[in-house]
Structures are given as C-alpha cells and as structure tokens.
C-alpha cells in the first residue's frame, strides 16, 4: 500500500486523510523524505532556499488565555508582567534595520488592558517613523481577543488594524485545529478551530497574506495532526491566502502541561508529511528554533524550502526550553552547505537579493535578544493614556 501511495505522490496526486495516515504510520523516514523533497524540487526547481531578516517581538507577556502548554505568559497582576513601550519597539526596529531587516513579527499575550487604540497607535507610530518597514503582526487569537474586549466584529478589527499599518498576519495560535485537542490544551477559549480559520478567511478576503502553523506533540493523535493539515488545505483551496506553513514541536519545559518533546525524527516525518499533504502551499519553513541548527538544516531534505527568520530575539520558545540562535552568516552557511542558493525574502516570499553580510559588515549575533532585560518591570509612559480593564491594570496606571 505504501509503495502504491508513494508512486501516486511522486506522480503529483493529492492524498486524502487516510492516505496521509498510512504514509505517516508506515512509510520509512527516508521514503517520506524523498517524496517531500521531490515536491519541494517541483515547486522550487532553482534550488533556492530563502530566509527573512526580521525580529520576533512580544509586546506583552500578560495573558488571560492561560494555555497550559505555554511557559511565556504571566497572569494579570503578575510582578513579572510587562508591556513594551513604543520607544522600546522603535529601538528594536532600529536594531533590526541595522542588521538588514525590514519587518517585525509582533505577537503577544491577551492583555485585557490594551484597547484597540493602543494597537492602532503603535502601528501608526511605526509607519510614521519607518514608512517602508513591515508589520507582520497579531495572530488570529489576538485579533479575536481585540474583537472581544472592544466588542468590535473581527472584520472591522482587521480593517482598522490594516488602516493603521498592519501588513500581514502570522499564523500563530493554531496549535492543532481540532476542538477536542484545543479543550485539552485550554486554548479553545482563545479561539476554536473554526474561529481561527475564520479570522484567516476574513484576513485573506481583506487582501492580507498570512502564514499557517501547527504545534504538534502535545495530546493530539496522528489523525488529528492530519485533520489540522486538511483544514488548512481546504481554506487554502478556498482563499489562496497562505504564503507558508510552519510546524514545530511542543516545548515542554516550565509549562503546566509538562511532558516530553517529540523527537527529531518525529519532526522530520511531520514536516515531510505536511509537504505531501499541503500541495497548495508554496512554502514550508524549517523550524531550527525548536529543532536546532542541525536538524533545522536537515529539514531542507524533508520538504522545507525556507529557513525562516534570522533570529534576533525570541521569548516564547525560549521560555519553554529551546534557545537556539543563528544569525545571517550561519543561516546562509547552513543553506549553502546543503547545496542550495541562499536568498533573502520578504513576508510575501518575494526575493530581496543575496545575503546582506556579503555586501557590508554586519555585527555577528551569537546570542538571542529578549523582549526586556531580566527584572525590568518599568511601565511605559504612554500606557497611562489608555484605559485599563483589570483592577491591577487600573492600579498600576494610577500608581504610575
């Protein structure tokens, strides 16, 4: 059966859920890799592997969602809670531009004390100061959170954020798009599977491009992992709005859920399966941030055609135990060592050219930045201008 399926995949046929399950369960890892690599080669015959220079910034760690797999959030009122000030964001943008970047990936917790005006003002301020700079920001659960606390429909939230300067939406918060799993992970409340997909549908209708993600290795079954991919494939058939798919393994350290991390081979098999199932996605990213540089590089033989972001800053995965770091020099070395040509890209996967460090001297980045220095709990001045909803939020603004 696997041989017959492999022949069909090699011939370009679309697999159904049962086919995908059979391949995932029974195909040898090298065979899955060869099938995925064949699809990668058909979609990207020029042997180019792309990457982006951007910065992963988390504007707040205060969150009411309390997903049990998350080691990053702090509850409302926590002494370790923070909200970045606009000036701090500007400084991060300056540092990103200095190493050749042109985009922030901006995501954060579901902070009840940030009204939509705060997001709009931040986006407007960034665009006023850095007109060409791109804001890839606010995953579907954050959009839903803004919609809920401001009592504004999702499509209007998207419209207002786009008017303020939002360029595209990251695919975070998808975890596994199956409600049984979401309830077990305590993330059903932040967005059900249908709600997550619907935010993306509305974003695509509004003309935004987005990415899609999958965090696997918690409580889902193999069938549910595949159901997640099928739901993404269906929406992509409908809208064509996803630019890329990124999967990573759950990072268990310091989380309430605990447990163990899925292995490197699980990752390569899941990635390869995604490349086979998601035949209507052009790009698959390698998650070297969770797998490390070595397995991250090996991903390029198991279906990935993109090395994701040069990591300047990372807070979420690091909080759960993974702290791999690669700057542009290292990412390019890994791409070229694997026999590919390295090219910078933007969020739309449009080529931006050869590596920046080949044109000019860049500072090496051998450690990851963080949102804030440890112990910095300062409250930004401009927060006073926005009404807080929580008691501790109100108190901190008065005290400030």
């Amino acid at each position, binding site marked *: 059966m696997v041989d017959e399926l492999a022949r069909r995949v090699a011939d370009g046929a679309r697999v159904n859920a049962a086919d995908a399950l059979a391949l995932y369960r029974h195909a040898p890892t090298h065979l899955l890799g060869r099938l995925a690599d064949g699809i990668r080669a058909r979609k990207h015959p020029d042997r180019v592997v792309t990457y982006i220079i951007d910065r992963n910034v988390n504007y707040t760690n205060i969150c009411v969602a309390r997903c049990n797999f998350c080691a990053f959030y702090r509850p409302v009122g926590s002494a370790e809670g923070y909200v970045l000030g606009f000036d701090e964001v500007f400084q991060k943008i300056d540092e990103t531009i200095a190493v050749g970047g042109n985009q922030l990936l901006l995501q954060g917790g579901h902070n009840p004390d940030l009204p939509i005006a705060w997001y709009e003002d931040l986006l407007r301020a960034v665009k006023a100061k850095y007109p060409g700079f791109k804001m890839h920001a606010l995953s579907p659960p954050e959009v839903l959170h803004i919609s809920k606390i401001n009592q504004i429909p999702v499509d209007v939230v998207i419209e207002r954020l786009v008017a303020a300067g939002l360029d595209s939406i990251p695919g975070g918060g998808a975890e596994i798009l199956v409600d049984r799993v979401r309830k077990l992970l305590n993330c059903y409340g932040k967005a059900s599977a249908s709600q997550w997909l619907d935010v993306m549908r509305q974003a695509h209708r509004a003309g935004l491009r987005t990415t899609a993600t999958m965090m696997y290795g918690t409580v889902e079954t193999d069938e549910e992992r595949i159901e997640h991919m099928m739901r993404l494939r269906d929406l992509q058939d409908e809208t064509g709005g996803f630019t890329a798919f990124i999967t990573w393994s759950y990072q268990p350290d310091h989380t309430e859920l605990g447990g*163990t991390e899925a292995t490197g*081979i699980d990752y390569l098999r899941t990635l390869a399966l995604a490349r086979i199932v998601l035949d209507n996605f052009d790009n698959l990213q390698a998650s070297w941030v969770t797998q490390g540089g070595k*397995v991250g*590089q090996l991903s390029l033989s198991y279906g990935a055609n993109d090395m994701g972001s040069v990591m300047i800053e990372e807070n979420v995965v690091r909080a759960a135990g993974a702290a791999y770091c690669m700057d542009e020099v290292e990412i390019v070395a890994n791409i070229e060592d694997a026999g590919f040509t390295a090219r910078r890209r933007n969020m739309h996967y449009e080529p931006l050219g050869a590596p920046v460090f080949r044109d000019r001297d860049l500072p090496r980045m051998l450690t990851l930045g963080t949102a804030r220095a440890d112990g910095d709990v300062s409250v930004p001045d401009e927060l006073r201008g926005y009404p807080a909803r929580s008691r501790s939020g109100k108190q901190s603004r008065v005290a400030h």
Partner: protein
Amino acid sequence: MTTSSTLDHLLDRVTAGGHLTAPEITALAVAPDILSLGMLADVVRRLIHGAQVTYLRVATCACDAPIVDAVPAGAREVRIVGSPASLDAATTIVERARAAAGNRVVSGFSWGDVDRVAVAAGLPVSRALAMLRSAGLEALVDVPLDAIGDADRVLSSLMGAGFERLRFTIEKAPASERQALAERASALQKQYGAIQSINPLPTVPHAFRPTTGYDDVKAVAIARLAAPNVPSIQVDWLRYGPKLAQVALTFGADDLDTVSPSDEAPEGRRRAPLEDVRRNVEAAGLTPVERDGYFAVVA
C-alpha cells in the same frame, strides 16, 4: 537527487550483501542528496544489526581527581576523562577506577596521551600500554584515525598489550577526508580484525565552523558504507545530543556511546536520561538494547 534507477541499482546490490565501490561512495558523498546516501547506509546497517540499536551507559571520572563517589549502579563502563600528567598518574587512576568499577570495563585516555606519557617516562609506548593494561585499563577511548600517523604501529602495539575490540574515533578531519579514513579503517580491519567500532563525528569541534547536520549524517553514512566490515558505527549521545544522534541512527549508526548512567539529567532537561534514549530509538523505528563496555548485550 540520485536518479531512481541508479539508486535502485545500488540498493539492490547492498541488499544482496554487496558493497559500493570507492568512486560510487565518492559520487554519493559529493552530491547534495543525503537521502540516497542514508537509504544505502541504512540497508547495510540493517543487514548487520537488524533493527537493534545498542547504547552504553558510561560513568566518568576525571583523570586528576580522586574517585570519591561510588559508580552509579546503571553504569556499564567506567571512563577516565582528561589527560594524565604522567605514566605514574595514569597507572594510579586506572588502578583506582578498576577498584571502583567492579566487573565493568575501565576505559580512558587517547592514543596521543599514552604516547606522550610513555616518551616522558623514557619507555616504548608498547611498554606503557602493557603497564596500563595490567593496571586494569581495557580500552583506549580515543584512537583518532586522523591523528595516529602510523596505524600499523598503533594497532600492533595495542593488540600486543592485550587491548581487544578497538574503537576508532575521528579528531577533526574535514569532510573531504572522511571517506579515505573510513576506507583506511576497513583495510586495517581486514588485516587485524580487531576493530569493533568507528565513531565518525569529530571529537574536537572546530571553534569557528562547527559541523552541520548534513556534514554529520554524511559522515555517519560514509563510514557505514566505506567500512562495512567494521561491526559498529557509533554516535556520542552526550556530545551530539538526542536530535542529531537519533537522526544518525537512520543514516547507518547502530550504537549510542556516552549515555548518562543516572536517571537524573545533570546536563539539563534537554539532555535526556535513559528513558529518553530508549524513546528516541523507538521513535526512529528501531529497538534499543543495552550493552556493556565489551560490546556484549546486557540481558
């Protein structure tokens, strides 16, 4: 990617127990397609070991520190790490390790260390090896194929002193030399028949240009294909970590060295203890089996 017909032809040959020629291995090694190389190495590995992956739990003791702690019950080998100051110091630490080790193998030192302390003591290396052997040393940990020079002298000295089941390592040879080194190991095995394993990943990482994932899996696969007469291809679990070590098991490796003897994880949670070793092997579709320092499966 290697064309299907070429790969099928090579797979048929290795499945039937045949070997690849040196030019065939070279062609595979220089191509960016690691999967064909991995498939071929995996066939060779399964012909020798089936689905079995052995692992060795090792207790380490520093060369220059007294052995104060009892050897953890789970350890199957006691390994002396570091370089001895002199032959006397080496002999003393071996005697102490031997006394603490019970019926476990005591290993330690590199060929270079033994050579150096022998010269300093004004003795031939074969004499120094014999002294260490009679003090209780049963294996040299590092016999680096890329740094030992006259391999015939090394092998005859070791075997003459009573060392059996020799383990070859690679110190820092670049990718371009890997195949030649594995072929050399294979030729020495034909001649002496005493080589038990090759650990093909560098023991001394390059400070500015560490090996990549492609480098590592290629090195493992090339060693398996170019030295099919050497029983085991090892990966160091502690040095290379669970993710790379696990993937290497699908590229021809069959043995995991330097697994922690304790179920605590002194290196932090991302360096997995025994349960995680077994979990990783099983997730690779293989069967974990514990072995001792003599390469014998522990019942």
